[in-house]
């Protein structure tokens, strides 16, 4: 039942404020089903309720229905809370496996209906009671509900109260009166949607509650038709919801909208693609008037639409037979319906556009003299230009349907440097005869090109929303030479790159004289000492006067030590340790030398 209802909602369509702009397409339903699917792992009772009720609305078979049923039954055992009972019994109802009411659960439910309970608790209790088939005392419930509303009169609380009221038998006017209170709290979005703060679940809850309550009490709900349309618009705008709870509420409210006694919003949409072209000339739609948006030319007025025999609720109108110019058209559609429940069906505005193909003709490109090129060929020769020349391009864009030259929204010339892929885009402009012209003065456009010489490719981009063959056409290659430009001399930028490695160059040591030279001079330097020793030997030098005294021996050892100390100083000692050693050796040597010399002097005197 629900499935059929949903398709009826998809009657026709629109983008105006007064008519729902879309409906649940089969693709949408498939996606909603996917959101519900995880529930079948049977881990969470609430998810199972959302999924089973959602599947029911979507007209889907529930996989493993018996297993799900057992799961639901087992969770509603003894000691279950009222909320669990509500979830289980509602899920059981949706699944078609009624939960048997046990004594303890009946007791729990009746105890929950007391004064002081919140309206949500009451809703759970009352729904559970209805599902379990427990008789309710209408007066008592009403009293409790009034108490709850006195305590908390938020939209959410009201929404629950409506659902409570809808399930009661007898006079529920006191709750029905509150519908208006809730509806006035709705916020308008963009002038075409109405919602309650809190989003989809609250909006859906209140709406379904209000309509159900209105049905129970057999009175038209205080919701104006255009409000109903706006609520429906909001619900449809939320069809991409990703939570199973949201899906549940959405489907609940949508099926309520398609299946109530008061308001059934009608969606008027284009059944075919939004664009109409010669290949698919039939707009399958209902029509009142069709006006071209650009110049307000009316091409159709008061035209009846023919119902299509192959599909219900689809009507068609042949627009192309009237030879419309390309462009956007506004179509005003009305539906005369005998069913007074339908809302949002008069003066619905639709936009469609008429596409035509275009042809690029009379293309001339060149510097001094022009060459002809035919679409879609590329000029075989490379154009050459330097700073004294201009590059010119002329072409005509012709509408193939009317054969007249036409203007398009996008007529750009894209010039791309082949090596660096840098692109520069110019706009081609029309003259009075609708001939597109584009020229660049090479010397004046150095800035655009950055002064980079090289081969550029010239491409023409022709595009418009109302042509069926937008084009990117490579016309020719152009070799540009700018004066004084060698290579792009921009400073190297290493911001996000590896920098070049740097190796330190060590200073090379100074050149030194050859070892032959130094050896020769070393020998020359030692030579005097050798000569001295040789001559002394020849002269018969002796040290026979050496006095055999301690002081003399010590003096000469000391002297040798001082000289050795100098050698050590050269090789390894530092100055201060040298001085320390020198002091020690020196003092000893000094006194020994002194005594030795005085001895020698005394000896000489003798």
């Amino acid at each position, binding site marked *: 039942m629900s499935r059929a209802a949903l398709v009826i909602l998809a009657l026709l369509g629109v983008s105006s404020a007064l008519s729902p702009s879309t409906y649940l397409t089969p693709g949408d339903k498939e996606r909603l089903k996917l959101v519900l699917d995880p529930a079948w792992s049977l881990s969470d009772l609430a998810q199972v309720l959302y999924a089973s009720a959602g599947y029911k609305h979507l007209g889907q078979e529930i996989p493993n229905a018996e297993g799900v049923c057992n799961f639901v039954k087992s969770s509603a055992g003894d000691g279950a809370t009222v909320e669990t009972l509500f979830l289980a019994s509602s899920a059981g109802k949706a699944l078609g496996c009624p939960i048997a009411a046990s004594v303890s659960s009946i007791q729990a439910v009746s105890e929950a209906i007391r004064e002081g309970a919140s309206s949500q608790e009451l809703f759970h209790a009352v729904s559970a009671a209805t599902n379990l088939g427990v008789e309710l005392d209408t007066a008592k419930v009403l009293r409790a509900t009034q108490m709850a509303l006195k305590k908390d009169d938020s939209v959410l609380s009201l929404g629950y109260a409506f659902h409570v009221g809808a399930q009661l038998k007898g006079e529920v006017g006191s709750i029905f009166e509150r519908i208006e209170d809730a509806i006035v709290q709705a916020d308008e979005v963009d002038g075409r949607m109405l919602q309650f703060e*809190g989003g989809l679940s609250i909006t859906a809850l209140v709406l379904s509650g209000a309509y159900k309550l209105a049905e129970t009490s057999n009175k038209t709900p205080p919701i104006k038709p255009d409000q109903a349309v706006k609520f429906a618009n909001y619900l449809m705008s939320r069809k991409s919801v990703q939570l199973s709870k949201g899906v549940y509420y959405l489907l609940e409210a949508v099926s309520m909208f398609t299946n109530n006694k008061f308001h059934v919003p009608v969606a008027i949409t284009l059944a075919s693609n939004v664009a109409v072209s010669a290949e698919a000339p039939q707009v399958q739609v209902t029509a009142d008037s069709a006006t071209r948006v650009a110049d307000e030319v009316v091409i159709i007025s008061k035209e009846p639409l023919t119902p299509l025999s192959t599909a219900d609720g689809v009507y068609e109108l042949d627009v192309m037979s009237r030879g419309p110019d390309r462009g956007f058209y506004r179509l005003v559609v009305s539906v005369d319906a005998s069913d007074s429940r339908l809302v949002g069906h008069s003066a619905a505005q639709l*936009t469609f556009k008429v596409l035509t193909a275009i042809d690029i003709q009379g293309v001339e490109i060149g510097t001094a003299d022009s060459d002809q090129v035919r679409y879609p060929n590329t000029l075989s020769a490379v154009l050459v230009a330097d700073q004294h020349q201009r590059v010119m391009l002329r072409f005509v864009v012709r509408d193939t349907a009317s054969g007249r030259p036409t203007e398009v*929204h996008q007529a750009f010339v894209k010039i791309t440097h082949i090596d660096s892929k840098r692109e520069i885009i110019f706009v081609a402009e029309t003259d009075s005869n609708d001939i597109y012209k584009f020229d660049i003065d090479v010397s004046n456009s150095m800035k655009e090109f950055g002064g980079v010489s090289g081969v550029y490719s010239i491409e023409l981009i022709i*595009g418009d929303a109302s*042509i069926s063959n*937008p084009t990117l056409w490579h016309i020719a290659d152009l070799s540009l030479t700018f004066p004084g430009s060698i290579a792009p001399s921009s400073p190297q930028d290493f911001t996000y790159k590896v920098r070049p490695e740097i190796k*330190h160059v060590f200073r090379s040591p100074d050149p030194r004289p050859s070892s032959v*030279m130094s050896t020769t001079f070393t020998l020359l*330097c030692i030579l005097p000492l050798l000569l001295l020793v040789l001559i002394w030997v020849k002269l018969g*030098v002796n040290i026979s006067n050496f006095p055999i005294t301690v002081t003399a021996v010590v003096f000469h050892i000391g002297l040798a030590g001082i000289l050795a100390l100098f050698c050590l100083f050269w090789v390894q000692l530092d100055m201060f340790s040298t001085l320390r050693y020198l002091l020690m050796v020196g003092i000893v040597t000094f006194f020994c030398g002194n005594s030795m010399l005085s001895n020698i002097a005394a000896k000489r005197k003798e």
Partner: protein
Amino acid sequence: MSTQPSGRDSPARMLRLAVFVVCLASALGFNTLVLVDTLATRETHSIFLKSLQERGHEVSVKAADDPSLQLSRYGEYIYQNLVILAPGVEEFGGALSVETIVEFVDGGGNVLVAGSRDAADLIRELVTEVGVEMDEEGAAVIDHLHYDANDDGQHTLIAAPSSGLIESEVMVGPRDAVPLLYRGTGLITDADNPLVLPVLRAPSTAYCYNPTQSISDYPHATGQNMLLVAALQARNNARVVVSGSLEFFSDAFIMASVQTPQGAFYERSGNGKVVEALSQWVFKEEGVLRVVSVQHHLQGEKEPPVAYTIKQDVEYKIKVERLVDGVWKPFMSNDLQVEFVRIDPFIRLIMTPNKDGVFSVTFKVPDVYGVYQFKVEYNRVGFTRLFSTTQVSVRPFTHVEYERFIECAYPYYASAFSMMVGVFLFSMVFLHHKESPHKTKAE
């Protein structure tokens, strides 16, 4: 606690453990403020917001004109991340303003801003502060060659080819051939500003203009010079992403299929993956590097010397880690460089990594003494800027460290030593020579 019987202790311990885990989670998580025009955005962008929550963000969604808005309390930022999905906001509520948001970025906060065709001046002003300019009001990105089949007729629902995405897996995830859906305004940036990154470039055939007006002036943004999504990584590593399209992040676009005029059909648009990767990047869950330790010493030693001497062989090691799924892991790369700098770099070398994320290199200290720095500066698209300097001094040879004997100086050494030997011998002979007897006789 310990005096209690263990049986009663364990639930308390469990509780403490649970509290600890919760604290830990909130300590690791980020506080993210999401500003919206209407709370309906919470539902139209639920996939995006849910993915933030799943990644550990504490998401608070508020209306952009909520009078209680504030980013900082007592001088400390309450939020690390700010998402502005409110193109229509005329004035921010509470303590929020363009200036405070810029201060927030200066303080290291991350911002994601989405605009639209009709974005308010406030949003335009905000994005100008980060080096991005939105095209004028009413202008939409149009591409007659790359639009989606669900377009409303004006070719403003762009199916941008994924080739326009920046080449950085860190920022936009692995490359994929699926086009991205985009409807909104074009962004213009200064190509010479290296901090602004072109996350998604428009196709060559796109332009930004009011679709209902014919082109009389040159469009502000055309072709690949126009960006659809731009990003800024400031010098303090704060990240900002600007998109000209609010719907780019929406559930509708993420779940939509794409059909191009050329006939290619894709089951799902590429938006989902890119939005996920980009939001991970902008909130610094991806592409974050840190220096763990720096070591330097002479080759073959362990400890650094007080000062290096010129021409010594020195070894430098740096350990770098990268944040992967909230855990610091060793970073691997073949292009990390170290510089040895004394005002100018004297040496710049690429370091070799090992599997622990330790990069090392050995080089000879230059023969110029002075105060040097080991400097590692790693700046790559998508990664935070890695910067580390260690100062060391380099001194010349001490006097004992020069060559002791030079061959060409042998004559000098020889003369000095021969002089010393001579003095010793001469003093012996002079003092103790005994005249031969015949000479004495001759006298």
